[in-house]
């Protein structure tokens, strides 16, 4: 089985460092990377709508000089005819050099990786994992703070279904002196298994609260999330919880001057547009950081597969 990226924990701390350094070098010297993937093809298989992640992968491949094959709508693909993920992965392996896949079912990317003969990047498998978003988050933290250690990180909003939150906790858990402040309504708290198997198992410091404003002064990073309609079976629950936290300039008054505000996007209304011009808002920088990390990742996996 060739190397794929399914979960952020597939990457060692050294590999995260290596990807960060490659991404920083791409930012500094884009021309050096502009033709590295000439003649190579990335297949983006998106069985669930996500314009921005798909475009980020495609932009990443184009900036490496490569080409893109794209399946954007499951309704038009063979999946609608009943083809399995396993078969799809085998077929696409005959056309492309690397796959980026999003699928509504949890574990779909792993099944694709088990059957493909080329690297598979998980671009989101239902509510389970979204490792390249975490890579974008990490590069943003590195560029804004210069480090991954000695940070108080506030995670706010939907901490139950928010896969980016679980992945980010997993990634930051390996660094020294990182403290988590988990801010959510009671119903959307971090699942107990994340607390038991990541936070408590590794002896990490964390507090849970429902009060964003009280937590604000101590935060170095505030990671806001959207309450996602598609993760709820019950529309009433979604409507009741969707406006739990809305970040406004008022609430930022007690925040540190060098706070970094992150959000995986898309935003609905959980961050007021008035904050966009605040220098502490980093969520649009996060988008471009995501592209650079995806470039670094594509290069790494193609090299490990012997394609480059």
């Amino acid at each position, binding site marked *: 089985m060739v190397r794929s990226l399914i979960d952020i924990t597939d990457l060692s701390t050294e590999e995260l460092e290596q990807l960060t350094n490659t991404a920083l070098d791409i930012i500094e010297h884009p021309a050096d990377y502009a033709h590295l993937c000439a003649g190579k093809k990335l297949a983006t298989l998106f069985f669930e709508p996500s314009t921005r992640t798909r475009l980020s992968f495609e932009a990443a491949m184009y900036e490496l000089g490569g080409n893109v094959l794209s399946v954007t709508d499951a309704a038009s693909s063979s999946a609608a005819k009943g083809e*399995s993920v*396993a078969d799809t992965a085998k077929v696409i392996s005959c056309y492309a050099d690397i796959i980026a896949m999003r699928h509504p*079912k*949890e574990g779909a990317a792993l099944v694709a990786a088990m059957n493909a003969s080329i690297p598979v990047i998980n671009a989101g498998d239902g509510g389970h994992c979204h490792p390249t978003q975490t890579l974008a988050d990490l590069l943003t933290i590195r560029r804004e703070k210069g480090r991954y250690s000695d940070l108080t990180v506030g995670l706010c909003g939907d901490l139950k279904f928010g896969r980016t939150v679980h992945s980010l906790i997993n990634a930051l858990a390996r660094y020294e002196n990182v403290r988590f402040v988990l801010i959510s309504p009671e119903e959307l708290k971090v699942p107990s298994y994340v607390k*038991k198997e990541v936070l408590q198992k590794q002896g990490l410091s964390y507090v849970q609260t429902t009060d964003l404003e009280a937590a604000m002064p101590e935060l170095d990073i505030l990671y806001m999330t959207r309450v996602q309609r598609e993760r709820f079976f019950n529309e009433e629950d979604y409507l009741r919880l969707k406006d739990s936290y809305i970040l406004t300039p008022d609430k930022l008054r007690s925040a540190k001057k060098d706070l970094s505000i992150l959000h995986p996007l898309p935003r609905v209304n959980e961050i007021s547009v008035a904050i966009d011009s605040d220098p502490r808002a980093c969520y649009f920088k996060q988008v471009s950081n995501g592209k650079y990390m995806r470039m670094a990742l594509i290069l790494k996996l193609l090299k490990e597969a012997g394609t480059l």
Partner: protein
Amino acid sequence: MNIDSIHNGVVIDHISAGRGMRLYELLGLGELDVSVAIIKNVVSKKMGKKDIIKIDADLPVDFDLIGYVDPGATVNIIRDGKLVEKLDIDMPERLVGVIKCKNPRCITSTEQELEHVFKLTDRKNKVYRCVYCETKAP
């Protein structure tokens, strides 16, 4: 209460009291056309109470499944009325095709041919998780 000794077969002993029936069901013993005895709440010096299953046939048993349901159980193989092998059971690292993932969002719910695989993620608390979606085993 006496249950006759078996001549050729398998005795699953030291089953935690109350788990015998679950093991009987998961091992599919109800579907066998051989004598099977479940003895519940047997007084045990070591365990206080235990369950025992006796299968009167020399059949292969799924050690992984037994290790998943009750890692403290022992399996005794009987041939010609004599104990020929006594095996301690441990929790298996992986369970392949033994139990099914119940998460409706898991890829195993739609990929019909896909084998259900669980891995041991927390030995102390006996936690198994689906390798695909990481949902805890029932």
